[in-house]
Protein backbone atom coordinates (compact mmCIF):
# COMPACT_ATOMS: atom_id res chain seq x y z
CA UNK A 1 0.00 0.00 0.00
CA UNK A 2 1.67 3.20 -1.12
CA UNK A 3 1.97 6.28 1.00
CA UNK A 4 -0.53 8.22 -1.14
CA UNK A 5 -3.27 5.64 -0.60
CA UNK A 6 -2.56 5.60 3.12
CA UNK A 7 -2.81 9.39 3.29
CA UNK A 8 -6.10 9.30 1.36
CA UNK A 9 -7.52 6.79 3.81
CA UNK A 10 -6.30 8.94 6.70
CA UNK A 11 -8.06 11.97 5.19
CA UNK A 12 -11.33 10.15 4.65
CA UNK A 13 -11.37 8.56 8.11
CA UNK A 14 -10.32 11.70 9.96
CA UNK A 15 -12.73 14.06 8.19
CA UNK A 16 -15.59 11.61 8.62
CA UNK A 17 -14.76 11.28 12.30
CA UNK A 18 -14.62 15.04 12.63
CA UNK A 19 -17.98 15.42 10.92
CA UNK A 20 -19.46 12.81 13.26
CA UNK A 21 -18.19 14.69 16.30
CA UNK A 22 -19.66 17.94 15.01
CA UNK A 23 -22.97 16.15 14.52
CA UNK A 24 -22.77 14.79 18.07
CA UNK A 25 -22.07 18.28 19.41
CA UNK A 26 -25.07 19.67 17.54
CA UNK A 27 -27.30 16.91 18.86
CA UNK A 28 -26.09 17.82 22.35
CA UNK A 29 -26.85 21.49 21.66
CA UNK A 30 -30.42 20.62 20.72
CA UNK A 31 -31.15 18.01 23.34
CA UNK A 32 -29.42 19.10 26.54
CA UNK A 33 -31.61 20.85 29.10
CA UNK A 34 -29.79 24.04 29.97
CA UNK A 35 -27.06 26.36 28.78
CA UNK A 36 -24.13 25.06 30.85
CA UNK A 37 -24.58 21.47 29.69
CA UNK A 38 -25.01 22.64 26.11
CA UNK A 39 -21.80 24.63 26.43
CA UNK A 40 -20.02 21.52 27.66
CA UNK A 41 -21.26 19.42 24.78
CA UNK A 42 -20.45 22.06 22.20
CA UNK A 43 -16.91 22.84 23.27
CA UNK A 44 -15.79 19.28 23.88
CA UNK A 45 -17.26 17.74 20.77
CA UNK A 46 -16.53 20.64 18.45
CA UNK A 47 -12.89 20.90 19.46
CA UNK A 48 -12.31 17.18 18.88
CA UNK A 49 -14.18 17.43 15.59
CA UNK A 50 -12.10 20.42 14.49
CA UNK A 51 -8.88 18.63 15.44
CA UNK A 52 -9.82 15.53 13.47
CA UNK A 53 -10.78 17.55 10.41
CA UNK A 54 -7.49 19.47 10.57
CA UNK A 55 -5.52 16.22 10.86
CA UNK A 56 -7.43 14.89 7.88
CA UNK A 57 -6.77 18.00 5.80
CA UNK A 58 -3.05 18.32 6.55
CA UNK A 59 -1.95 15.69 3.97
CA UNK A 60 -3.90 17.56 1.27
CA UNK A 61 -2.09 20.87 1.34
CA UNK A 62 1.34 21.95 0.24
CA UNK A 63 4.02 21.80 2.90
CA UNK A 64 5.22 23.94 4.63
CA UNK A 65 3.41 27.25 4.31
CA UNK A 66 -0.13 26.14 3.62
CA UNK A 67 0.04 23.50 6.32
CA UNK A 68 1.34 26.10 8.78
CA UNK A 69 -1.56 28.37 7.86
CA UNK A 70 -3.99 25.54 8.64
CA UNK A 71 -2.33 24.98 12.01
CA UNK A 72 -2.49 28.71 12.83
CA UNK A 73 -6.22 28.69 11.99
CA UNK A 74 -6.66 25.67 14.24
CA UNK A 75 -4.93 27.35 17.18
CA UNK A 76 -6.89 30.58 16.66
CA UNK A 77 -10.22 28.75 16.63
CA UNK A 78 -9.23 26.87 19.79
CA UNK A 79 -8.32 30.10 21.60
CA UNK A 80 -11.44 31.93 20.43
CA UNK A 81 -13.82 29.12 21.32
CA UNK A 82 -12.17 28.63 24.72
CA UNK A 83 -12.52 32.31 25.53
CA UNK A 84 -16.09 32.62 24.31
CA UNK A 85 -17.24 29.56 26.25
CA UNK A 86 -15.50 30.99 29.35
CA UNK A 87 -17.34 34.28 28.85
CA UNK A 88 -20.71 32.56 28.45
CA UNK A 89 -20.02 30.38 31.50
CA UNK A 90 -19.05 33.38 33.63
CA UNK A 91 -22.16 35.28 32.66
CA UNK A 92 -24.31 32.30 33.62
CA UNK A 93 -22.39 31.73 36.85
CA UNK A 94 -23.12 35.31 37.86
CA UNK A 95 -26.80 34.81 37.20
CA UNK A 96 -27.63 35.96 33.73
CA UNK A 97 -30.69 34.47 32.09
CA UNK A 98 -30.18 30.77 31.46
CA UNK A 99 -32.17 30.46 28.28
CA UNK B 1 -28.64 22.58 -13.55
CA UNK B 2 -25.16 23.70 -12.65
CA UNK B 3 -23.69 25.46 -9.65
CA UNK B 4 -24.28 29.10 -10.72
CA UNK B 5 -27.91 28.40 -11.62
CA UNK B 6 -28.59 26.79 -8.25
CA UNK B 7 -27.06 29.65 -6.30
CA UNK B 8 -28.86 32.09 -8.61
CA UNK B 9 -32.19 30.55 -7.64
CA UNK B 10 -31.11 30.81 -3.99
CA UNK B 11 -30.25 34.48 -4.53
CA UNK B 12 -33.67 35.12 -6.10
CA UNK B 13 -35.30 33.53 -3.06
CA UNK B 14 -33.23 35.68 -0.71
CA UNK B 15 -34.24 38.85 -2.56
CA UNK B 16 -37.92 37.94 -2.25
CA UNK B 17 -37.58 37.05 1.44
CA UNK B 18 -35.69 40.22 2.26
CA UNK B 19 -38.15 42.45 0.43
CA UNK B 20 -41.12 40.76 2.11
CA UNK B 21 -39.68 41.27 5.56
CA UNK B 22 -38.69 44.86 4.75
CA UNK B 23 -42.30 45.67 3.80
CA UNK B 24 -44.13 43.77 6.49
CA UNK B 25 -42.02 43.95 9.64
CA UNK B 26 -42.87 46.86 11.97
CA UNK B 27 -39.71 46.94 14.09
CA UNK B 28 -36.91 49.04 12.56
CA UNK B 29 -34.11 46.73 13.76
CA UNK B 30 -35.74 43.83 11.91
CA UNK B 31 -36.15 46.06 8.88
CA UNK B 32 -32.42 46.72 8.94
CA UNK B 33 -31.78 42.96 9.09
CA UNK B 34 -34.17 42.42 6.17
CA UNK B 35 -32.43 45.16 4.19
CA UNK B 36 -29.13 43.36 4.71
CA UNK B 37 -30.61 40.00 3.67
CA UNK B 38 -31.98 41.66 0.53
CA UNK B 39 -28.66 43.33 -0.25
CA UNK B 40 -26.67 40.13 0.18
CA UNK B 41 -29.11 38.33 -2.11
CA UNK B 42 -28.51 40.95 -4.80
CA UNK B 43 -24.74 40.54 -4.37
CA UNK B 44 -25.04 36.78 -4.71
CA UNK B 45 -26.90 37.40 -7.97
CA UNK B 46 -23.91 39.42 -9.17
CA UNK B 47 -21.71 36.50 -8.16
CA UNK B 48 -23.70 34.16 -10.38
CA UNK B 49 -23.11 36.51 -13.32
CA UNK B 50 -19.42 36.69 -12.41
CA UNK B 51 -19.05 32.92 -12.29
CA UNK B 52 -20.73 32.47 -15.63
CA UNK B 53 -18.29 34.92 -17.14
CA UNK B 54 -15.32 32.64 -16.50
CA UNK B 55 -12.97 32.84 -19.46
CA UNK B 56 -9.31 33.05 -20.53
CA UNK B 57 -8.11 30.98 -17.58
CA UNK B 58 -9.85 33.05 -14.90
CA UNK B 59 -12.42 31.35 -12.71
CA UNK B 60 -14.80 34.29 -12.83
CA UNK B 61 -15.35 37.66 -14.43
CA UNK B 62 -13.54 40.15 -12.17
CA UNK B 63 -15.74 43.19 -12.84
CA UNK B 64 -18.88 42.00 -10.98
CA UNK B 65 -16.64 40.79 -8.14
CA UNK B 66 -15.18 44.28 -7.73
CA UNK B 67 -18.69 45.77 -7.83
CA UNK B 68 -19.79 43.40 -5.08
CA UNK B 69 -16.79 44.18 -2.86
CA UNK B 70 -17.60 47.87 -3.17
CA UNK B 71 -21.26 47.12 -2.54
CA UNK B 72 -20.62 45.12 0.63
CA UNK B 73 -18.64 47.95 2.21
CA UNK B 74 -21.15 50.62 1.17
CA UNK B 75 -23.99 48.45 2.44
CA UNK B 76 -22.25 48.16 5.78
CA UNK B 77 -21.86 51.93 6.04
CA UNK B 78 -25.58 52.38 5.28
CA UNK B 79 -26.41 49.81 7.97
CA UNK B 80 -24.15 51.60 10.45
CA UNK B 81 -25.86 54.92 9.81
CA UNK B 82 -29.30 53.31 10.09
CA UNK B 83 -28.34 51.65 13.38
CA UNK B 84 -26.97 54.94 14.74
CA UNK B 85 -30.28 56.64 13.86
CA UNK B 86 -32.17 53.78 15.49
CA UNK B 87 -30.18 54.04 18.72
CA UNK B 88 -30.55 57.82 18.84
CA UNK B 89 -34.31 57.45 18.43
CA UNK B 90 -34.27 54.88 21.22
CA UNK B 91 -32.28 57.17 23.49
CA UNK B 92 -34.67 60.04 22.87
CA UNK B 93 -38.04 58.31 23.08
CA UNK B 94 -37.37 54.99 24.82
CA UNK B 95 -38.77 53.06 21.91
CA UNK B 96 -37.73 52.43 18.36
CA UNK B 97 -41.23 52.63 16.97
CA UNK B 98 -41.73 55.04 14.11
CA UNK B 99 -45.44 55.52 14.75
CA UNK B 100 -47.13 58.16 16.87
CA UNK B 101 -48.61 55.64 19.25
CA UNK B 102 -45.37 55.10 21.14
CA UNK B 103 -44.15 58.64 21.76
CA UNK B 104 -43.26 59.06 25.41
CA UNK B 105 -44.02 62.65 26.33
CA UNK B 106 -41.72 62.86 29.30
CA UNK B 107 -38.64 62.23 27.21
CA UNK B 108 -39.61 64.44 24.30
CA UNK B 109 -39.65 67.49 26.58
CA UNK B 110 -35.95 67.27 27.41
CA UNK B 111 -34.01 70.48 26.87
CA UNK B 112 -31.59 68.70 24.64
CA UNK B 113 -30.40 69.38 21.14
Amino acid sequence: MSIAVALNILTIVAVSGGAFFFLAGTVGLLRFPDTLTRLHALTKADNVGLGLIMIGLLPRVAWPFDALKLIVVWVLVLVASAVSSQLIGRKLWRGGDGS
Amino acid sequence: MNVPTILGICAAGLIGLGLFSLIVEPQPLRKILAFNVLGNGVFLFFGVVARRGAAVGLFGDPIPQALVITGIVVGFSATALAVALLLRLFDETGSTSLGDDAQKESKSERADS
Partner: protein
Amino acid sequence: MTIGVGFSIALGLLILAVAVFTIGTRDSFAAVVAFVVYGLLLSLGWMNLYCPDVALTEAAVGGGVTGALLLNACARVRSEKTSDFKKSPRWIGRGMAGLLCLALSSGLVAVVILLPNPAPTLAPEATRSLSATGLGNPVTAVLMAYRALDTMLEKVVLLLALVGVWSLASDRFWGGRATFGHLPEPDRPLIFLTRVLAPVGIIAGIYLFWVGADAPGGAFAGGAILSAIWILVFFAGLSVVPAVGSLGLRIVLSVGIIIFLAAGVAGISMAAGFLAYPAGFAKPIIVVIEVAMTLSIGATLGLLVAGPPGESLKP
Protein backbone atom coordinates in the same frame (compact mmCIF):
# COMPACT_ATOMS: atom_id res chain seq x y z
CA MET C 1 -25.94 14.82 -10.36
CA THR C 2 -22.36 15.24 -9.26
CA ILE C 3 -21.16 15.91 -5.73
CA GLY C 4 -20.46 19.55 -6.57
CA VAL C 5 -24.02 20.16 -7.66
CA GLY C 6 -25.34 18.28 -4.63
CA PHE C 7 -23.21 20.44 -2.33
CA SER C 8 -24.52 23.60 -3.99
CA ILE C 9 -28.12 22.48 -3.58
CA ALA C 10 -27.53 21.71 0.09
CA LEU C 11 -25.76 25.04 0.63
CA GLY C 12 -28.50 26.97 -1.17
CA LEU C 13 -31.23 25.32 0.89
CA LEU C 14 -29.28 25.97 4.09
CA ILE C 15 -28.81 29.66 3.23
CA LEU C 16 -32.53 30.00 2.49
CA ALA C 17 -33.45 28.22 5.71
CA VAL C 18 -31.24 30.49 7.82
CA ALA C 19 -32.65 33.57 6.02
CA VAL C 20 -36.21 32.41 6.71
CA PHE C 21 -35.31 31.95 10.38
CA THR C 22 -33.69 35.40 10.51
CA ILE C 23 -36.78 37.18 9.28
CA GLY C 24 -39.34 34.91 10.87
CA THR C 25 -38.22 34.53 14.46
CA ARG C 26 -39.77 36.75 17.11
CA ASP C 27 -36.67 37.14 19.27
CA SER C 28 -34.44 39.94 17.99
CA PHE C 29 -31.28 38.52 19.52
CA ALA C 30 -31.81 35.16 17.80
CA ALA C 31 -32.43 37.02 14.54
CA VAL C 32 -29.12 38.89 14.78
CA VAL C 33 -27.18 35.71 15.61
CA ALA C 34 -28.86 33.94 12.68
CA PHE C 35 -27.88 36.88 10.50
CA VAL C 36 -24.20 36.41 11.41
CA VAL C 37 -24.52 32.70 10.55
CA TYR C 38 -26.16 33.76 7.28
CA GLY C 39 -23.16 35.95 6.49
CA LEU C 40 -20.73 33.09 7.11
CA LEU C 41 -22.77 30.66 4.99
CA LEU C 42 -22.86 33.28 2.25
CA SER C 43 -19.07 33.47 2.23
CA LEU C 44 -19.10 29.68 1.74
CA GLY C 45 -21.43 30.30 -1.20
CA TRP C 46 -18.99 32.85 -2.58
CA MET C 47 -16.21 30.28 -2.41
CA ASN C 48 -18.51 27.88 -4.24
CA LEU C 49 -18.72 30.50 -6.99
CA TYR C 50 -14.92 30.73 -7.08
CA CYS C 51 -14.80 34.35 -5.88
CA PRO C 52 -12.28 34.26 -2.99
CA ASP C 53 -11.80 38.03 -2.69
CA VAL C 54 -15.53 38.55 -2.22
CA ALA C 55 -15.69 35.62 0.21
CA LEU C 56 -12.97 37.22 2.35
CA THR C 57 -14.67 40.62 2.32
CA GLU C 58 -18.10 39.12 3.06
CA ALA C 59 -16.77 37.07 5.99
CA ALA C 60 -14.89 40.04 7.43
CA VAL C 61 -17.37 42.87 6.80
CA GLY C 62 -20.71 41.19 6.31
CA GLY C 63 -20.29 38.53 8.95
CA GLY C 64 -17.89 40.05 11.43
CA VAL C 65 -18.17 43.81 11.65
CA THR C 66 -21.88 43.99 10.78
CA GLY C 67 -22.50 41.29 13.37
CA ALA C 68 -20.71 43.32 16.04
CA LEU C 69 -22.69 46.42 15.08
CA LEU C 70 -26.07 44.67 15.13
CA LEU C 71 -25.39 42.74 18.35
CA ASN C 72 -24.43 45.99 20.05
CA ALA C 73 -27.65 47.62 18.82
CA CYS C 74 -29.79 44.64 19.78
CA ALA C 75 -28.37 44.62 23.31
CA ARG C 76 -29.24 48.29 23.74
CA VAL C 77 -32.81 48.10 22.50
CA ARG C 78 -33.51 44.87 24.35
CA SER C 79 -35.47 46.64 27.03
CA GLU C 80 -38.21 47.91 24.78
CA LYS C 81 -41.53 46.16 24.67
CA THR C 82 -42.95 44.80 21.47
CA SER C 83 -46.37 45.99 22.51
CA ASP C 84 -45.25 49.51 21.64
CA PHE C 85 -45.50 48.71 17.98
CA LYS C 86 -48.59 48.89 15.91
CA LYS C 87 -49.27 45.44 14.69
CA SER C 88 -47.82 44.30 11.42
CA PRO C 89 -50.21 44.71 8.50
CA ARG C 90 -53.32 42.60 8.34
CA TRP C 91 -53.49 39.46 6.31
CA ILE C 92 -54.49 41.28 3.18
CA GLY C 93 -51.46 43.55 3.43
CA ARG C 94 -49.15 40.62 4.09
CA GLY C 95 -50.81 38.67 1.28
CA MET C 96 -50.25 41.41 -1.25
CA ALA C 97 -46.65 41.93 -0.14
CA GLY C 98 -46.11 38.18 -0.32
CA LEU C 99 -47.56 38.05 -3.83
CA LEU C 100 -45.32 40.92 -4.93
CA CYS C 101 -42.22 39.23 -3.54
CA LEU C 102 -43.21 35.88 -4.99
CA ALA C 103 -43.62 37.49 -8.40
CA LEU C 104 -40.26 39.23 -8.03
CA SER C 105 -38.49 36.02 -7.03
CA SER C 106 -40.11 34.06 -9.85
CA GLY C 107 -39.08 36.71 -12.33
CA LEU C 108 -35.50 36.57 -11.04
CA VAL C 109 -35.46 32.76 -11.21
CA ALA C 110 -36.61 33.04 -14.81
CA VAL C 111 -33.81 35.54 -15.47
CA VAL C 112 -31.26 33.14 -13.97
CA ILE C 113 -32.46 30.23 -16.07
CA LEU C 114 -32.71 32.31 -19.23
CA LEU C 115 -29.31 33.98 -18.90
CA PRO C 116 -27.60 33.98 -22.30
CA ASN C 117 -25.25 31.17 -23.26
CA PRO C 118 -22.35 31.72 -23.89
CA ALA C 119 -22.27 34.24 -21.06
CA PRO C 120 -20.99 37.72 -21.94
CA THR C 121 -17.85 38.49 -20.03
CA LEU C 122 -15.29 41.21 -19.63
CA ALA C 123 -12.55 38.84 -18.45
CA PRO C 124 -10.50 39.03 -21.66
CA GLU C 125 -10.40 42.83 -21.49
CA ALA C 126 -9.53 42.69 -17.81
CA THR C 127 -6.59 40.37 -18.34
CA ARG C 128 -5.31 42.14 -21.43
CA SER C 129 -3.98 45.14 -19.50
CA LEU C 130 -3.04 43.21 -16.37
CA SER C 131 0.67 43.21 -17.12
CA ALA C 132 0.65 46.99 -17.59
CA THR C 133 -0.64 47.48 -14.04
CA GLY C 134 1.91 45.07 -12.59
CA LEU C 135 -0.74 43.28 -10.56
CA GLY C 136 -1.50 39.57 -10.61
CA ASN C 137 -4.98 39.64 -9.14
CA PRO C 138 -7.55 40.85 -11.71
CA VAL C 139 -10.07 41.88 -9.05
CA THR C 140 -7.51 44.18 -7.43
CA ALA C 141 -6.66 45.51 -10.86
CA VAL C 142 -10.33 46.33 -11.45
CA LEU C 143 -10.64 47.99 -8.06
CA MET C 144 -7.43 50.00 -8.15
CA ALA C 145 -6.78 50.64 -11.82
CA TYR C 146 -9.70 50.17 -14.18
CA ARG C 147 -12.41 51.44 -11.83
CA ALA C 148 -10.28 53.42 -9.41
CA LEU C 149 -12.83 56.24 -9.49
CA ASP C 150 -15.49 53.94 -8.00
CA THR C 151 -13.15 52.89 -5.22
CA MET C 152 -12.25 56.46 -4.39
CA LEU C 153 -15.88 57.53 -4.30
CA GLU C 154 -16.68 54.56 -2.10
CA LYS C 155 -14.10 55.79 0.40
CA VAL C 156 -15.87 59.15 0.33
CA VAL C 157 -19.19 57.40 1.01
CA LEU C 158 -17.66 55.64 4.02
CA LEU C 159 -16.41 58.93 5.39
CA LEU C 160 -19.77 60.60 4.81
CA ALA C 161 -21.52 57.80 6.67
CA LEU C 162 -19.11 58.32 9.57
CA VAL C 163 -19.79 62.06 9.60
CA GLY C 164 -23.50 61.24 9.56
CA VAL C 165 -23.10 58.93 12.55
CA TRP C 166 -21.08 61.55 14.44
CA SER C 167 -23.65 64.24 13.71
CA LEU C 168 -26.20 62.29 15.75
CA ALA C 169 -24.43 63.24 18.96
CA SER C 170 -25.86 65.87 21.25
CA ASP C 171 -24.24 69.26 20.90
CA ARG C 172 -22.56 69.08 24.27
CA PHE C 173 -20.79 65.82 23.34
CA TRP C 174 -19.45 67.00 20.01
CA GLY C 175 -15.72 66.43 19.88
CA GLY C 176 -15.87 63.81 22.62
CA ARG C 177 -15.23 60.11 22.57
CA ALA C 178 -17.55 57.47 21.17
CA THR C 179 -18.82 55.09 23.79
CA PHE C 180 -20.21 51.99 22.00
CA GLY C 181 -23.19 52.58 24.26
CA HIS C 182 -21.78 51.95 27.75
CA LEU C 183 -19.92 48.67 27.47
CA PRO C 184 -19.85 46.48 30.57
CA GLU C 185 -16.66 45.89 32.52
CA PRO C 186 -14.57 43.48 30.42
CA ASP C 187 -13.94 39.96 31.68
CA ARG C 188 -10.41 38.66 32.17
CA PRO C 189 -10.76 35.99 29.43
CA LEU C 190 -11.70 38.72 26.95
CA ILE C 191 -8.62 40.74 27.90
CA PHE C 192 -6.51 37.61 27.47
CA LEU C 193 -8.03 36.92 24.07
CA THR C 194 -7.36 40.45 22.94
CA ARG C 195 -3.76 40.35 24.08
CA VAL C 196 -3.21 37.09 22.18
CA LEU C 197 -5.25 37.98 19.12
CA ALA C 198 -4.27 41.60 18.52
CA PRO C 199 -0.74 41.01 17.18
CA VAL C 200 -1.91 38.04 15.10
CA GLY C 201 -4.82 40.03 13.75
CA ILE C 202 -2.70 43.02 12.80
CA ILE C 203 -0.28 40.79 10.96
CA ALA C 204 -3.16 38.97 9.27
CA GLY C 205 -4.74 42.25 8.16
CA ILE C 206 -1.50 43.64 6.77
CA TYR C 207 -0.74 40.31 5.09
CA LEU C 208 -4.17 40.18 3.47
CA PHE C 209 -3.74 43.69 2.11
CA TRP C 210 -0.20 43.04 0.87
CA VAL C 211 -0.89 39.71 -0.80
CA GLY C 212 -3.96 41.13 -2.54
CA ALA C 213 -1.78 42.38 -5.35
CA ASP C 214 -1.22 38.90 -6.74
CA ALA C 215 -3.54 36.57 -4.82
CA PRO C 216 -7.00 36.87 -3.27
CA GLY C 217 -7.08 39.58 -0.65
CA GLY C 218 -6.93 43.30 -0.98
CA ALA C 219 -7.30 46.52 0.95
CA PHE C 220 -10.94 46.00 1.97
CA ALA C 221 -10.51 42.59 3.55
CA GLY C 222 -7.30 43.68 5.27
CA GLY C 223 -8.86 46.90 6.50
CA ALA C 224 -11.91 45.05 7.81
CA ILE C 225 -9.72 42.71 9.86
CA LEU C 226 -7.76 45.66 11.26
CA SER C 227 -11.02 47.35 12.26
CA ALA C 228 -12.26 44.16 13.91
CA ILE C 229 -9.09 43.98 16.01
CA TRP C 230 -9.50 47.64 16.93
CA ILE C 231 -13.09 47.06 18.05
CA LEU C 232 -11.96 44.05 20.11
CA VAL C 233 -9.32 46.23 21.78
CA PHE C 234 -12.02 48.74 22.72
CA PHE C 235 -14.31 46.02 24.06
CA ALA C 236 -11.49 44.71 26.24
CA GLY C 237 -10.89 48.16 27.65
CA LEU C 238 -7.24 48.05 26.63
CA SER C 239 -7.43 51.35 24.80
CA VAL C 240 -9.60 54.43 24.86
CA VAL C 241 -11.62 55.47 21.84
CA PRO C 242 -9.93 58.51 20.34
CA ALA C 243 -11.91 61.71 20.61
CA VAL C 244 -13.89 62.69 17.55
CA GLY C 245 -12.29 66.11 17.47
CA SER C 246 -8.70 64.96 17.61
CA LEU C 247 -6.65 66.01 14.62
CA GLY C 248 -4.67 62.79 14.49
CA LEU C 249 -7.81 60.70 14.12
CA ARG C 250 -9.17 62.94 11.41
CA ILE C 251 -5.91 62.75 9.50
CA VAL C 252 -5.89 58.94 9.70
CA LEU C 253 -9.49 58.82 8.47
CA SER C 254 -8.94 61.06 5.49
CA VAL C 255 -5.45 60.03 4.43
CA GLY C 256 -6.87 57.39 2.08
CA ILE C 257 -8.95 59.87 0.13
CA ILE C 258 -6.26 62.55 0.16
CA ILE C 259 -3.63 60.27 -1.33
CA PHE C 260 -6.10 58.87 -3.84
CA LEU C 261 -7.02 62.38 -4.96
CA ALA C 262 -3.39 63.42 -5.08
CA ALA C 263 -2.54 60.45 -7.29
CA GLY C 264 -5.51 61.24 -9.48
CA VAL C 265 -4.64 64.88 -9.93
CA ALA C 266 -0.99 64.00 -10.52
CA GLY C 267 -2.22 61.68 -13.24
CA ILE C 268 -3.57 64.66 -15.14
CA SER C 269 -0.10 66.11 -15.56
CA MET C 270 2.02 62.98 -15.67
CA ALA C 271 -0.25 60.56 -17.56
CA ALA C 272 -3.35 60.42 -19.69
CA GLY C 273 -5.89 61.98 -17.34
CA PHE C 274 -7.50 61.95 -13.90
CA LEU C 275 -6.57 58.77 -12.00
CA ALA C 276 -4.43 57.51 -14.87
CA TYR C 277 -1.13 55.98 -13.83
CA PRO C 278 2.10 56.74 -15.72
CA ALA C 279 3.48 53.73 -17.54
CA GLY C 280 5.90 51.68 -15.45
CA PHE C 281 4.94 53.43 -12.21
CA ALA C 282 1.50 51.89 -11.82
CA LYS C 283 2.38 49.27 -9.22
CA PRO C 284 4.21 51.57 -6.73
CA ILE C 285 1.46 54.18 -6.90
CA ILE C 286 -1.20 51.53 -6.40
CA VAL C 287 0.65 50.14 -3.39
CA VAL C 288 0.97 53.59 -1.79
CA ILE C 289 -2.73 54.28 -2.34
CA GLU C 290 -3.62 50.88 -0.92
CA VAL C 291 -1.58 51.44 2.24
CA ALA C 292 -3.41 54.69 2.91
CA MET C 293 -6.73 53.08 2.03
CA THR C 294 -6.25 50.12 4.37
CA LEU C 295 -5.46 52.48 7.25
CA SER C 296 -8.47 54.67 6.55
CA ILE C 297 -10.85 51.76 6.03
CA GLY C 298 -9.75 50.10 9.26
CA ALA C 299 -10.27 53.31 11.25
CA THR C 300 -13.57 54.21 9.55
CA LEU C 301 -15.19 50.79 9.95
CA GLY C 302 -14.17 50.63 13.59
CA LEU C 303 -15.55 54.08 14.34
CA LEU C 304 -18.78 53.33 12.47
CA VAL C 305 -19.41 50.54 14.96
CA ALA C 306 -18.46 52.79 17.88
CA GLY C 307 -21.26 55.21 17.15
CA PRO C 308 -21.68 58.88 17.97
CA PRO C 309 -19.82 60.45 20.86
CA GLY C 310 -21.74 60.40 24.09
CA GLU C 311 -21.29 60.57 27.80
CA SER C 312 -19.23 57.86 29.37
CA LEU C 313 -20.26 56.26 32.63
CA LYS C 314 -16.65 55.63 33.60
CA PRO C 315 -15.02 58.41 35.65
